[in-house]
């Protein structure tokens, strides 16, 4: 196979080819390394220069390399969370999930660009410049895991790790035409993930197809004693094989699938087309209700910034990262943080600091927590009648660079359909389900906590029926 041919293989296919002896892991790594080094989308902040140590005999991922979002700590390798304040920071340890995957045979290919501290939906908040969408380089790839999504979509990485706090895996996956899965909160260790909002952050795969997502997730889920909030996964993640949705009940929440809430017509058309396909596969489709979902975004923009304001307090110039001297202690703090953080990060630190302040806590943080509980209850109620709740992933296709940078609220609305699942801590997958104006659209499917295997099975059946690769090929021709 030529170097280009090998990078056309899905990760699972590459694993098979290596195991059958048709492909060498070294050859594959070098092909991707060259592709990543030649990336023109600004998707990478660091690319491996040397071949990794050979993976152990029988390692299940066989040496298929992995692109990793910048905010995962990787020992001796820059881990900057897309921020100037951590520019050049090389941690002395590696994040649990990255170490697990390396041990399973997925060596580090590169670190991918992202919105600073995962705050953003377009990747324009990276201190190291925006990532370009491989479908149209004048458009954003989504965020915050935009580098990971663009790398996988462009074929410079077989698969990638991202993190999702309010949609940061699913939305860029949708905008780049790939698969992105946010697992149940607690299934994947957060140890070594530079935190944005601790109670929401969760690592997940960005892949070319559902099978790859299942394969990567299989080696990510684990109880980690270094993360008290990690639970692991009961059982094993299976590779999906179902081509039917017979007997599956899909709930379509009125609150998250209506043009009235700002979802583009083309997105809804693709969504409805997928619903018809689901029916053909045997699913029943009914409207369901998540009455508190319209408040999810408001609650999210209280809770996430509150946690962030505290999580980001450690970047004070005292021990590591950027430090700007200014005579005294307070001056040093002020200048380091003023110059080290970008605008959006500072905005959220201010928001969070305010909502946690004495006298405001109950009105903001306390109330937002109650809304969060209500939203989780809404999903629980829905799952009594439905196997899955489905929505469009993003209200719009990839938008042009700069289109929303001056309007934070418009930017925040990108997460309208993804934030409720984050608040409820439940698994949700986005799969590409069509094109609108020649740009990919995403279909989101979520289930109860720890229903990853069922979510993957259903997503796989839909994926086969949608035939997105064929759609994309025809659109490009």
């Amino acid at each position: 196979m030529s170097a280009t041919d090998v990078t056309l293989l899905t990760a699972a296919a590459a694993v098979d080819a290596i195991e059958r002896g048709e492909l060498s892991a070294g050859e594959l790594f070098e092909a991707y390394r060259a592709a990543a080094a030649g990336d023109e989308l600004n998707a990478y902040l660091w690319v491996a220069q040397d071949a990794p140590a050979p993976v152990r005999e029988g390692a299940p991922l066989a040496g298929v390399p992995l692109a990793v979002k910048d905010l995962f700590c990787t020992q001796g390798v820059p881990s900057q969370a897309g921020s100037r304040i951590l520019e050049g920071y090389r941690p002395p340890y590696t994040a649990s999930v990255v170490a697990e995957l390396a041990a399973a045979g997925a060596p580090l290919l590169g670190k991918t660009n992202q919105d600073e501290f995962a705050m953003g939906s377009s990747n324009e908040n990276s201190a190291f410049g925006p990532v370009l969408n491989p479908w149209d380089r004048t458009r954003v790839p989504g965020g915050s895991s935009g580098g990971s999504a663009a790398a996988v979509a462009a074929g410079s990485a077989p698969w990638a790790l991202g993190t999702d706090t309010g949609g940061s895996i699913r939305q860029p996956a949708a905008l780049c035409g790939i698969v992105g899965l946010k697992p149940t909160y607690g299934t994947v260790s957060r140890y070594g993930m530079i935190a944005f909002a601790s109670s929401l952050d969760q690592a997940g795969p960005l892949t070319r197809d559902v099978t790859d997502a299942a394969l990567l997730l299989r080696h990510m889920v684990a109880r980690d004693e270094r993360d008290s909030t990690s639970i692991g996964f009961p059982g094993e993640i299976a590779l999906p094989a179902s081509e039917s949705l017979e007997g599956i009940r899909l709930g379509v929440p009125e609150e998250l699938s209506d043009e009235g809430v700002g979802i583009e017509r083309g997105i809804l058309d693709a969504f409805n087309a997928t619903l018809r396909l689901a029916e053909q596969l045997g699913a029943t489709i009914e409207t369901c209700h998540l009455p508190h979902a319209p408040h999810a975004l408001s609650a999210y923009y209280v809770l996430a910034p509150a946690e962030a304001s505290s999580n980001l307090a450690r970047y004070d110039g005292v021990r590591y990262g950027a430090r700007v001297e200014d005579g005294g202690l307070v001056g040093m703090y002020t200048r380091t943080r003023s110059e080290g953080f970008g605008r959006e990060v500072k905005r959220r630190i201010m928001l969070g600091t305010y909502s946690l302040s004495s006298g405001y806590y109950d009105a903001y943080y306390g109330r937002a927590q109650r809304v969060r509980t209500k939203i989780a209850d809404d999903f629980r109620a829905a799952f009594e009648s439905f196997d899955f709740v489905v929505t469009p992933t993003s209200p719009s296709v990839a938008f042009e660079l700069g289109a929303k940078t001056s309007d934070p609220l418009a930017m925040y609305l990108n997460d309208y359909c993804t934030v409720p699942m984050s608040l409820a801590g439940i698994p949700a997958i986005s799969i590409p389900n069509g094109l609108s104006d020649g740009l990919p659209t995403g279909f989101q499917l979520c289930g109860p906590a720890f229903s990853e295997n069922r979510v993957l099975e259903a997503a796989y059946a839909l994926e086969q029926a949608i035939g997105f690769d064929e759609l994309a090929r025809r659109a490009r021709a």
Partner: protein
Amino acid sequence: MTEFEPVIGLEIHVQLSTRTKMFCGCALSFGEPPNTLTCPVCLGLPGTLPRANAQAIHFGLMIGLALGSDLAPRSIFHRKNYFYPDLPKGYQISQYDEPLCRGGQLGEVRIHRVHLEEDAAKLVHAGSSGRIHGSDASVVDFNRGGTPLAEIVTEPDLRSAAQAREWLTLLRTTLRRLGVSDVNMEEGSLRCDANISIRPVGVTELGTKTELKNMNSFRFLERGINAEIARQEALLRCGGQVVQQTLHFDPQTERITSLRSKEEAHDYRYFPEPDLVPVATSEQMLEAARSAMPELPAAREERLQSLGVSAASARQLAWRTELGDYFEAALAADGAEPQPLANWICNELVARVGEDDPNASKVTPDALAKLVALVRQKAVTIGNAKLVLDRLVADGGDPAAIVEAEGLGVMAGGDDALDPIVEAALAANADAAEKIRGGNMKAIGAIIGHVMRETKGRADGAEVTRIVRQKLGL
């Protein structure tokens, strides 16, 4: 003139002597070179997460049991947010509105709450002041950062500095007895802040309080509180008002300076620590804490009294755990007379070893018990027994052997040696002999004194008296 009554509550921080730090696996520091006992977690490096130390929770539950607190079936950690270079995460993980223990009482003082938290790192300021203001540069030693702390908060039940000091002594003994901390004020494993207000006697509502920090010894605690009471009283007497503020006590100058006013108080923006799950106190954990409980000072005091030890000695032995342990070990070696044994420990031994642990001295409890037995058996006089104790403190050894080697044993009555010495004493003190003959037995002191000088204290006073009477035909 109005009489004022002080109202004092204490906030005590106790470093727990766990095997590892509160939220990571680093060992606790005992003066190691700076920054050698650190890891990514206690340095607050990006991406790291805390995990709660089960032993610290166990110790916290033991403290709660000792103080008679309600132990929360579920408690949670909060983040206390503020910027300071000794706080690597920009927040301290502490407990806020759902602490591990609530309520309770120790002695006459009610307990408000007990919670767990992590200690800050240590700042060392270059320059003359030793404080961050006015220093040229500061360096941080993270060895101490993350050490488990139990914070014990009392109700404002104390009414004087002396009472505060005495109560803190009881608390220290209780904690030492639990084995949960070194509780050493000078070394910082026991730290105490005081909330102080005063009010006219008879008034029930509280006056405005101030918080006095940095009293790093029992002596300074008492002096600091007294100084603050005097300051507040002087203010009120000349028509002023006490302003709520945090104060710093300088042990060198004994001066009180303001750290920050109420307006400058930090807004700590407490919120539940999302990186930790709630502490669910299981029946198993409670059972483990209960079964680890030793006898506490109050109970020991009572038990020692029931053995026949005087109230004063029982308190001293019970409140200084190491004295009590020493006493009980000696009693196990020779339990014939608890009170004389207690006297020898509380008076003679303490006079010689001071604040040090007698168990670490060269006098084994066994040796002391033997010495007291020698006195009881009249094999050595009390005076000479003290000399033997001096020798034991200096070199250790066996008291009987020392008595033998030094010739300090009592000259027995049948001993021919004593008779001529008494004879000579009577001759040399004819006046006294005459008085004794006349019925004035007090005069025998001079005779005995003479004999003792001659015998270097080896004579038994009673035996000398018997011989004197015999010789004078009484």
